[in-house]
Structure formats: structure tokens, C-alpha cells
């Protein structure tokens, strides 16, 4: 029983971190009907921003490493990541949506370079891949084939993969390939309750996650901008007709989603302090599963999905095989797609004819 309660605590705290990341997927999907596959990399970016802020001499000397310092690190990293989210939306997705010339060609070039480098890790194959991608992109843009029209979902998906590659490889260049160790911005206390050992870090992860989700819910439910956000996610054209500047709402959605992912990145780094530029891939995919499980586009669903995925993962490790740790999320994905593709809270989509 004690072990079970222990695992429960671990699962809830892991799950609330996934929930924070899942919120970004689901909110962006809500307004753009797009899976932002670069979202896991924003989570990584957030963790690195936290790392650099926490190691910043000025911040250390002015706020110390107390709670105030931790708050500054957290809020600062969230703000910087929100900025990254806005940049991604503005310079990758918005040109893609409006069908700006050469957007698809540019990002296909980057995806091509990535594939080229994967096939054979040399500069030449990278260049060949890039050129091939650009060529295909230009041909598609010029002929305007229906399935790959500039503003189609397929081209947005290609852009998403391109952005993700840029962030991962850019991260390796800027932050270095070797892992770094996230500083303890809040000291750990162990509480002993009966047979249970409760790690204060886990409580903090849970508390901060709940606080952020609560704030998000209040924002979306009661503010004018939050209502506009719900309107945009329900019907883009109808929202425009209300006089809502939908581009601005979409940018804001990216900013909020990115800030939440950054918070997730820092919270997870409190528990597992090893950070590296590819650290976002796996949590990103798992949070995506969480968003689908909860019903993509549904904010409450994303929170619930995150908790379930985190809990399932911790329980699988605790009571099953720890090697299944990463597999469990994908088993959930397969099950949900087979049994209830719209997700737990999602409604079936009625295609309009």
C-alpha cells in the first residue's frame, strides 16, 4: 500500500508536467487545427532558458537562490519561451497559412537537409537533401497541386517538422551537444509521513502545475481575450466577423502554450536535472499522446490526459517492466485511436458537406 501511494505521488507529479506540455498542443490545435510538432523543442528551450537564468551572476546576486530567485528563473524562462512561440508562429506558420511564396520550399529544404544528413552524415548529402527539398517545394508551389496547396495542412505539417529540426540542431549548436545539469533552484526537503517519503520538489511540481492550469482556466473562461480565443477555436471565420484580430489571438495562443511548455521544462528539470538539446522529443511525443487522449482541442481533456499518461508510465515502471517506460504512452495512443479516436472529452467531428 505504501509503495502504491508512493507511486501515486510520483505519477501525479510526472503527469502534471505532461499536462502542462499537452496544453500547448491542444490550444494550438484548437485555433489552427495543426499539431505543432516543434512544441517539445520549446519545452527544451524553456529548460535551457531556466538553466542560463539560474546561472546568471546578476540574478544570483540580486535575488539569491531563494524562492524569489526560483520565481524569477521560472517567469523569465516562460517569458523568453513565449517570445520563441511568437517568433515561430510569425515566421513559420503564418507565412505557411497565408501561402506566402517560397515558405513551403524553404522549410522543405530544411527537412530535406535533415533527411540527407540522416541518410549519410556529411555536408554533401546534407546539401543534396536541402537542394532536393527546395526543388520539390518550388515545383509544388508553382504547380499548386491540390493536396499540397501552400496553405494546406500537409504543408503546415512539413513546416512544423522543419521548425522542430531547426530548434533541435540549433540547440545543439548554441547550447552544446553535451548534457548540462540543471541547478537546484529550490532546495529539497524530504518529508516522512508514516512509511511514505514525500519529496518537496514533487509537491512543488504539482502545486505550480495546478496553479498555472487554474490561471489558464480563469483566463480562457472569464477574460475578453480568453473568450475571443474560444471563439477562434470554435469557428475562425465567425470570430473574424466579430471584429477579432484572429492573427493576434493565434500568436497569443502560441505564446501561452510555449510559456506553459517552458514551465513544464523547468519543473521536470527539478526532478530530473539532466538537460540536453534533444530532451524535448520524448516528453513532446508523450504530451501529444496526452492531448489526443483527452480529446485534442479540449483544455480540460489535455490536463486529464497528461495525468493519465504520467500515472500509467510511473505505474508501468513501478509494477511492470521499467523498459516499457517510453512504450506505455504509445500503447495508450494505439488504444485510444482504436477505441475512441475523438478522445475522452472530445466530441466527434461532424464533417460539413
Amino acid at each position, binding site marked *: 500500500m505504501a509503495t502504491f501511494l508512493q507511486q501515486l505521488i510520483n505519477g501525479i507529479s510526472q503527469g502534471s508536467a505532461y499536462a502542462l506540455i499537452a496544453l500547448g498542443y491542444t490550444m494550438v490545435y484548437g485555433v489552427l487545427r495543426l499539431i505543432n510538432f516543434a512544441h517539445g523543442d520549446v519545452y527544451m528551450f524553456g529548460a535551457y532558458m531556466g538553466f542560463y537564468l539560474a546561472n546568471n551572476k546578476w540574478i544570483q546576486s540580486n535575488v539569491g537562490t531563494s524562492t524569489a530567485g526560483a520565481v524569477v528563473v521560472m517567469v523569465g524562462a516562460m517569458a523568453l519561451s513565449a517570445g520563441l512561440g511568437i517568433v515561430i508562429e510569425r515566421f513559420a506558420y503564418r507565412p505557411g497559412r497565408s501561402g506566402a511564396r517560397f515558405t513551403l520550399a524553404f522549410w522543405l529544404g530544411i527537412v530535406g537537409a535533415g533527411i540527407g544528413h540522416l541518410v549519410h552524415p556529411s555536408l554533401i548529402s546534407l546539401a543534396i537533401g536541402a537542394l532536393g527539398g527546395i526543388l520539390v517545394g518550388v515545383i509544388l508551389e508553382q504547380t499548386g497541386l491540390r493536396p499540397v496547396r501552400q496553405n494546406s495542412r500537409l504543408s503546415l505539417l512539413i513546416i512544423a517538422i522543419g521548425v522542430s529540426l531547426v530548434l533541435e540542431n540549433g540547440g545543439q549548436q548554441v547550447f552544446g551537444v553535451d548534457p548540462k545539469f540543471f541547478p537546484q533552484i529550490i532546495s529539497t526537503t524530504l518529508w516522512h509521513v508514516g512509511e511514505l517519503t514525500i519529496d518537496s520538489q514533487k509537491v512543488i511540481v504539482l502545486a505550480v502545475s495546478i496553479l498555472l492550469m487554474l490561471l489558464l482556466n480563469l483566463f480562457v473562461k472569464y477574460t475578453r481575450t480568453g473568450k475571443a480565443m474560444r471563439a477562434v477555436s470554435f469557428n475562425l471565420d465567425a470570430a473574424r466577423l*466579430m471584429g477579432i484580430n484572429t492573427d493576434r489571438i493565434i500568436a497569443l495562443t502560441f505564446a501561452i502554450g510555449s510559456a506553459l511548455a517552458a514551465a513544464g521544462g523547468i519543473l521536470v528539470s527539478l526532478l530530473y536535472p539532466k538537460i540536453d538539446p534533444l530532451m524535448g522529443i520524448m516528453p513532446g511525443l508523450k504530451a501529444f499522446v496526452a492531448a489526443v487522449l483527452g480529446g485534442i482541442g479540449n483544455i480540460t481533456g489535455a490536463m486529464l490526459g497528461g495525468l493519465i499518461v504520467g500515472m500509467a508510465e510511473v505505474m508501468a515502471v513501478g509494477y511492470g517492466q521499467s523498459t516499457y517506460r517510453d512504450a506505455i504512452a504509445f500503447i495508450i495512443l494505439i488504444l485510444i485511436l482504436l477505441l475512441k479516436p475523438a478522445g475522452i472529452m472530445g466530441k466527434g467531428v461532424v464533417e460539413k458537406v
Partner: protein
Amino acid sequence: MPKTMLELKIVSSSYGAIEALKGVSLRIEQGEIVTLIGANGAGKSTTLRSITGLVPPVSGDILFEGQRLNALPTHKIVALGISMAPEGRAIFANLTVAENLELGAYLQPDAAQNERQMDRVITLFPRLAERWRQQGGTLSGGEQQMLAIGRALMSRPRLLLLDEPSLGLAPLLVHTIFAAIDAINKEGTTILLVEQNANAALKHSHRAYVLETGSIVMEGPSQQLANDPRVREAYLGEK
């Protein structure tokens, strides 16, 4: 001499390779109800969507009180005083009736003014008050149409565009909606009405245009068109 409120000059619009409007020209004077009738796919909705910038025109000019709308995004066009109740109502099903109306006044900062406008909408459609805290998606078709028109009125538009407001409604509700259209117009709002119910539309409008496959084929005072043998045969179901 009446003042021209909206003018379309040889406007063409397309969805990808499909040309939906082929050089449409029309004008609406201040204070009028003008109706646009035609078969399915004639381009009626596209005309409204072009005016509001949802489908930016490929060529031609759209002028609202002399200002060119072509290059403006929808939210700026709405800010100029044009409002639209779109086809299929497009109610925000996950928002309450009150929230739907609030969003209609998204660009209006004056809370007291909005409050008064909300009262006006309720006077027009008392049914909405009974559904106040209900989610938009739970409303009946007729109530949703009332909400769509009420929401469009919340921005206090000078020009109101209505896309098929009677579509799918029982005869009694059609009557209610058209009575409301008359009332809105009497209070000073100019209206462009798109309808497949040509009979009612011609009865409740001053002038009419007939649209066929993206072009205007006939125009004139509504009463005159209602008596035109070609209109009677093609749109009023008479032989």
C-alpha cells in the same frame, strides 16, 4: 438624392481555381433593404464573404461610404460599421447566449452603450432572454438565427449583411425573422439580404438583384421583379 452606402464595381472572387463571382456590380443606398436572390451556387454567399473580406476579391472594387475595402482584413471592415450574420448561423456553440452577444460587441469599448444595445436585441427577440445562460449549441434553429442576427447587431452596424436567415425555419419563425428585419431597418440600419426564399425576400425589400452563376442578370425594384415572368418562373415556382 440618397447617399450610396456600399458599391461593388465589377468584383470577381474565386476559391482556388473556381471563379465564384464574375464581375458583379451592385449598389446599396443608405436606409435600403436590398436583396440578392439566386439559385444555390450562384455566388450569393460569396458576394457577402467578399464584402467582409473573408474571401478577398481577385479584382474590382468594393467601396463602403467611399472607402475601398478590398485589401482590408475582416476585423477592420467590421470596425468600419459592417456586420454579418453568416450562413448556417455560426453560433459559438460552446459559449452562452450572453457570451455570444458580448463577442458581437468585441470592438465596442463602451460598456453602458453595449448594455443598451443588448436590451434592444432582447426587445427584438425576447426569446433570447429566456435562454440567457444556455450554451449556444443547445438552442433551436430559430433561436440560433435570432442569436446570429442579435450578435451581428451588437456592434451597432450601419450595414447589416444577412445570409439566408430563413433557411430551414418553420413558416411561423420565418415570419418572425422577417418582421425583425423590417424593424431593424426602420431603426435606421441598411440591410443586404441574401435569400433562397425569393418570395419573402422580394416582399420585404426595396430593391433586388438576381444572381446567376456569378453574374447579375436582373435588377430593379423588388415589386417589379416579383411581377416579372422570368423571375416568377425561375424563383417563385410558377409556371
